[in-house]
């Protein structure tokens, strides 16, 4: 569960004040709003990449407002994906697991599992440079899901894809959601993305969240 209580966050001169919303465990929520309204800033605050000036962020009823990003168990896919150019796809999937000192056997098993779930097993030993848009999306998603996070934050992950690849990624995201049961907060300005994927839509307007359930 993602629970924001009167969160105030600042990015340069831009400021979001007293934002509150809840995404129930297992939900797929789309966070919509026009460009420049603070959707990414909010996501960064939940990740722990941007300090919170006031309010509380709770993940599964635990106050993580002042926790380091790595302690929050959040999988994060930024808009530009930010893949690691010097690493292979396998290294991307292994990265978080090695930091958590998983055994080699467990790492290998998990990497295979993630690669098969996302359909990138044949790409495991390739460097990320030269991958197509859809393949890069899957790698970024696999990297974020590798350590079995409880929450997945997606920042406009489909915005740069063509219509065909976008449709393909809808299928991937739905199957990931079904397979992992992870709570998803997906930032988008595309209504079609929200309608295809989310069971709950949050709209950020004038610094306030307006929510509606889709189903």
């Amino acid at each position, binding site marked *: 569960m993602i629970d924001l209580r009167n969160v105030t966050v600042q990015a340069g001169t831009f400021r979001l004040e007293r934002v509150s919303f809840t995404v129930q465990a297992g939900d797929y929520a789309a966070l919509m709003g026009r460009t420049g309204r603070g959707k990414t800033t909010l996501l*960064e605050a939940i990740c722990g990449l941007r300090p919170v000036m006031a309010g509380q962020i709770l993940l599964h009823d635990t106050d993580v407002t002042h926790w380091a990003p*790595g302690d929050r168990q959040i999988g*994060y896919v930024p808009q*530009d994906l*930010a893949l690691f150019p010097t690493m292979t796809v396998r290294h991307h999937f292994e990265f*978080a697991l090695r930091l958590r000192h998983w055994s080699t056997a467990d790492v290998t098993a998990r990497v295979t599992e993630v690669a098969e779930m996302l359909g990138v097993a044949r790409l495991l030993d390739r460097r990320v440079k030269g991958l197509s848009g859809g393949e890069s999306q899957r790698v970024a998603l696999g990297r*974020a899901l590798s350590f079995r996070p409880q929450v997945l934050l997606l920042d406009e992950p489909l915005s740069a894809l063509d219509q065909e690849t976008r449709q393909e990624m809808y299928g991937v995201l739905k199957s990931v959601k079904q397979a992992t049961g992870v709570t998803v907060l997906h930032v988008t300005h595309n209504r079609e993305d929200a309608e295809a994927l989310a069971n709950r839509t949050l709209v950020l307007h004038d610094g306030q969240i307006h929510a509606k359930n889709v189903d």
Partner: protein
Amino acid sequence: MASTQILIVSGSPETPVSRLPLRTRSDVPFFVVMSGLSSTFIILIVLMLVANVLFTSTDDIQAALAKPEIQAAFRLTLLSCTIAALLSLWVATPLGYLLSRYRFPGRTVIDTLIEIPIVLPPLVVGLSLLILFHLPFGGEGRWTLDAFLEKSLGFQFTYRWPAVILAQFAVACAFSVRTMHVTFDQINPRAEDVARTLGCSRSQAFLYVALPQAWRGLVTAGTTAWARALGEFGPILVFAGATRMKTEVLSTTVFLELSIGNLNAAVAVSLLMVIMASLVLVILRLIGLRLTT
């Protein structure tokens, strides 16, 4: 005079366009003016090198290289330039990263301070180092930094080989910092953010994600520092002196040989430095080429 090749490409948008540079008759004045202006500098450098080569002979070069003082200067040059380059990288990497990634009070001041060794006359850098190491301090002003280091570490700087390295480092490091700053500016900081959400501390994100991406910049910064240290003369002369077999490096060898009227040896050593610098610059160009492709 060879006639200018004119390639005129015409056709509908569907026509495949030649990958050769598009040159029409109207482009000719542009290329003539641009290449004419550019060539003046290139011709100057080539003529200087040719003059050096014509002035000296292989016998002169062999005779110069056979002198034990010049051999010692060659060894000290290689050693001091390498140490100064490594020290520059050691400092420039964290400093370049901090300046690139963070906005903090005094950042502009630090950015300006780094430029000072670049804009100051080299002699002033040497003089400033000399003053720093000999400025009296302590209760009765009996101590100097040089005396303190000698007493506490058994290590005297001024007019000894460490002074050569420090003088080279003082200037070369500024160039390395600038290179590393630009290098980290070109690396997406978001990747380090993602690494932190995956469990990295800031140090781990720097070591595992940012630094591996910066390796070409590291090579360039190291090579620039090495080449810069090779050409350093003024600060070394003032701070380390030019004592034969002790603090003499190739740049000071040229000065010493000139001062005793041995022009042949001075030119021979100059050519040796040109060869060393060229090797380093060729490596730089190759790295730059790989970066762009």
